């Protein structure tokens, strides 16, 4: 229960809300107040219950106990439509688009402007979509289908959807996870305008600097329980982390400088028409090499071509001196390559399968006994990794789809780390992962590198790149534009190369 408050009744509030999924208590007696003209942050570790709380506000989940108050009056939402009609706009953590329909239809589904006799006014729909796109400053064609959009663009469409009606309450579940700095800045500008117009905003992010930069209040959850609701003024990042984690966090420590060994992965003149050109680099044992650059520079595409998911048009990839056949992920895996992909929903996980089977998928060979997959071995291996990555789950036999977003990401990591690779390619390894686990993932990568693993890391998280990488390769518009050794790597040098302002140095061929 909240203390009697100062201003008018909050636009939207939760009072003493609990929600369980079977044996899992996702929310336990949680209260929250959203006020008009205020941007409120929701903080907590992976699996703390943030998304569950949001889905309760959005009418997706019905609370087991407690109340929802709309402008002070108790309400019951029977579905997402009720919440929307009450002026609540929600951006969910996972994009929820219709791949076959156009962007415009995605944004206005069920709410299309109409002409006489209830007919959809197609022109008005497209006009409104184009207006939204220019407000967000992106050049997406309203009439192209959502299929094939990059994650960042999917997120943009979700944001446009939420902005497309006059929301009294705007709720955003990790909207910035896949966005670049520029897009994030643009989103924040729009959100601030909405706040000035009197909207109440709830914002979730694992990036503390975003919370401190955008929000005025914060509510922290830990293990589904309410820890604190307070103004952010006077709070330090450490305070916030302590509330989330329940203890002081060890310093985020940089990767130990390791003595790099022999070259394991060597990429020569790799080219994929219209995507990237003439990319050459080496990765040695014990080394973490970051592939930096702006979203769209072709980093993920290079990673996928190296692993053989996409076929390169020219160039070669060698592992331990042997040329990999082009376009064959199986051969790549046999040679000791592992790829943690960017889009976990699409390529990383089989959502309906259990946690242990997902982790086991890549290592079917190592858990085989007399030609059959041994369930016991599979279970043991999964349990092992679940502990290493602090996975928060109920049973290992649960389907991956019930895990929180960050914990799904951990399963993808576990799945590939469990293959015991010689070269690990990770695409955005800590996107959506909370601060505590992020440090853990960094520690793990660092330890694996010290044991002789070669790591190629694609990351848009500049601090992460600077902290972890021995060498930074920067891409700009499909080309490698710079190679920056650890000693000279700063935010400025990397950004300069990423935006194509300077060519630090031609990469060694």
């Amino acid at each position, binding site marked *: 229960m909240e203390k009697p408050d100062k201003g008018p009744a909050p636009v939207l509030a939760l009072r003493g809300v609990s929600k369980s999924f079977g044996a899992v208590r996702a929310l336990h007696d949680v209260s929250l107040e959203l006020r008009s003209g205020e941007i409120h942050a929701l903080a907590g570790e992976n699996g703390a219950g943030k998304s569950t709380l949001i889905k309760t506000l959005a009418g997706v989940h019905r609370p087991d106990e407690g109340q929802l108050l709309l402008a002070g009056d108790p309400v019951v939402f029977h579905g997402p439509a009720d919440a929307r009609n009450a002026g609540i706009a929600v951006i969910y953590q996972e994009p929820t688009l219709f791949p076959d329909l156009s962007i415009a239809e995605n944004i206005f589904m069920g709410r299309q402007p109409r002409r006489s006799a209830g007919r*959809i006014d197609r022109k008005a729909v497209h006009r409104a979509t184009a207006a939204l796109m220019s407000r967000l400053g992106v050049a997406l064609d309203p009439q192209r289908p959502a299929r094939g959009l990059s994650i960042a663009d999917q997120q943009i469409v979700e944001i446009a959807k939420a902005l497309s009606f006059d929301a009294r309450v705007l709720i955003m579940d990790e909207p910035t996870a896949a966005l670049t700095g520029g897009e994030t800045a643009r989103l924040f500008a729009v959100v601030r305008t909405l706040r000035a117009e009197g909207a109440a905003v709830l914002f979730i992010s694992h990036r503390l600097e975003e919370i401190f930069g955008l929000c005025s209040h914060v509510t922290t959850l830990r293990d589904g329980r309410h820890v604190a609701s307070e103004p952010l003024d006077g709070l330090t990042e450490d305070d916030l982390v302590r509330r989330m984690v329940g203890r002081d966090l060890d310093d985020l420590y940089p990767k130990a400088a390791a003595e790099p060994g022999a070259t394991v992965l060597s990429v020569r003149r790799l080219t994929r028409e219209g995507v990237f050109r003439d990319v050459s680099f080496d990765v040695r044992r014990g080394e973490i090499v970051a592939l930096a650059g702006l979203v769209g520079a072709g980093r993920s595409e290079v990673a996928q071509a190296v692993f053989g998911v996409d076929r390169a048009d020219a160039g070669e990839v060698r592992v331990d001196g042997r040329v990999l056949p082009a376009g064959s992920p199986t051969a790549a895996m046999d040679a000791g390559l592992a790829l943690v992909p960017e889009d976990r929903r699409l390529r990383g996980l089989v959502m309906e399968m259990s946690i242990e089977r997902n982790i086991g998928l890549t290592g079917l060979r190592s858990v085989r006994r007399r030609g059959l997959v041994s369930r016991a071995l599979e279970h043991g291996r999964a349990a092992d990794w679940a502990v290493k990555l602090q996975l928060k789950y109920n049973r290992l036999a649960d389907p991956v789809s019930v895990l929180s977003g960050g914990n799904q990401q951990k399963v993808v990591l576990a799945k590939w780390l469990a293959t015991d690779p010689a070269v690990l390619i990770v695409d955005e390894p800590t996107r959506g992962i909370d601060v505590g686990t992020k440090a853990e993932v960094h520690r793990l990568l660092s330890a694996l590198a010290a044991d002789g693993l070669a790591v190629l890391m694609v990351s848009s998280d500049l601090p992460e790149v600077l902290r972890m990488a021995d060498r930074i390769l920067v891409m700009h518009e499909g080309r490698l534009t710079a190679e920056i050794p650890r000693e000279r790597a700063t935010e400025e040098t990397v950004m300069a190369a990423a935006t194509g302002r300077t060519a630090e140095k031609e990469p060694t061929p």
Partner: protein
Amino acid sequence: MTSTLHRPTPDPTPPAPAEEGRSARSLVDAVFRAREIAIGGALALLILGTWLANPGFLDDQGVKDLLLNSSILVLLAVGQSVVVMTRNIDLSVGSVVGLTAFACGHFVAGTDHSALTVVLLGIALGTVCGLVSGALVSFGRVPALVVTLGMLYIIQGIDHAWAHGEQINAANVPDGVLSLGSGSVLGVPYLPLISAAVLAATGYFLRTYRSGRELYAIGSSPDAARLAGIPVRRRILAAYAFSGAVAGFAGALWLARFGTVVADAANGWELTVVSAVVVGGVAITGGTGSVWGAALGALLLTTIGSALVVLKVDSFWQQAITGVLLLAAITTDRVVQVRTTSALRKRSRR
């Protein structure tokens, strides 16, 4: 030029809609139109070829037969595609046609009820069947395949038990009803006109009304549809009711056209209908396609059948050809989807 899309420096004027964007759209348009054009082309070739081999194929009677033969299948295909669009399937349509045809016949035998009454009765009966299937699928959450397969057998069973080996004879059916099946305006028989009207109305509805678009949305991503606040279960129920109603309508028309009805009329049609729909470009995984394509698919399958008869080819070939077309259609759907996805992905990132 769209590489400005992801620049960190926010520029005040948003870039103009991209060239790439425009061609991405036309690419997708082209893909879907290509399907309809391909089927239309195949149809034209088939008709032309058969006509060259046997000019009788396209005389007045031949054309009339072709239209009459295809109209019931077209009607059923329209109903089925509305269901398939939502990522469901209705396998009970054949048995519903059989039941309503027999029930309508039983009802009018020896009376002088009008054609309208019979049609209304058929539609009502079909709707009830559709509602039962739909309720089980949407509210009962039983997989559509199981429900409608079960319904197929149940309805067939009822039909057989009721008919007891009897059949409806044309002699007992009032002339008013029979004239619906044999009459025409300006030389065009009623039946194809009716099918065309239902087709056009459904096509228009799916394109221009919110609830029509929502059917596509449900098929494209049921989870996203739920989160978008679409009343998913009600829409699916409605889709089944529509498919049932159309099947009931078709049953009444069946009686009007043939007069003589046995208990297992339209037995096995469900598979032909589903084939027509899939061949016509309504993906079995939902979310895409149009009733126009489905109707073309139905027209194509019927024409193949008629052409083979005219060419005196063993009717066994008809089934084989249908099977080949079906596999080809599903394979193309899949390949086209993969291709367009990767094409679109490229355009998205540049």
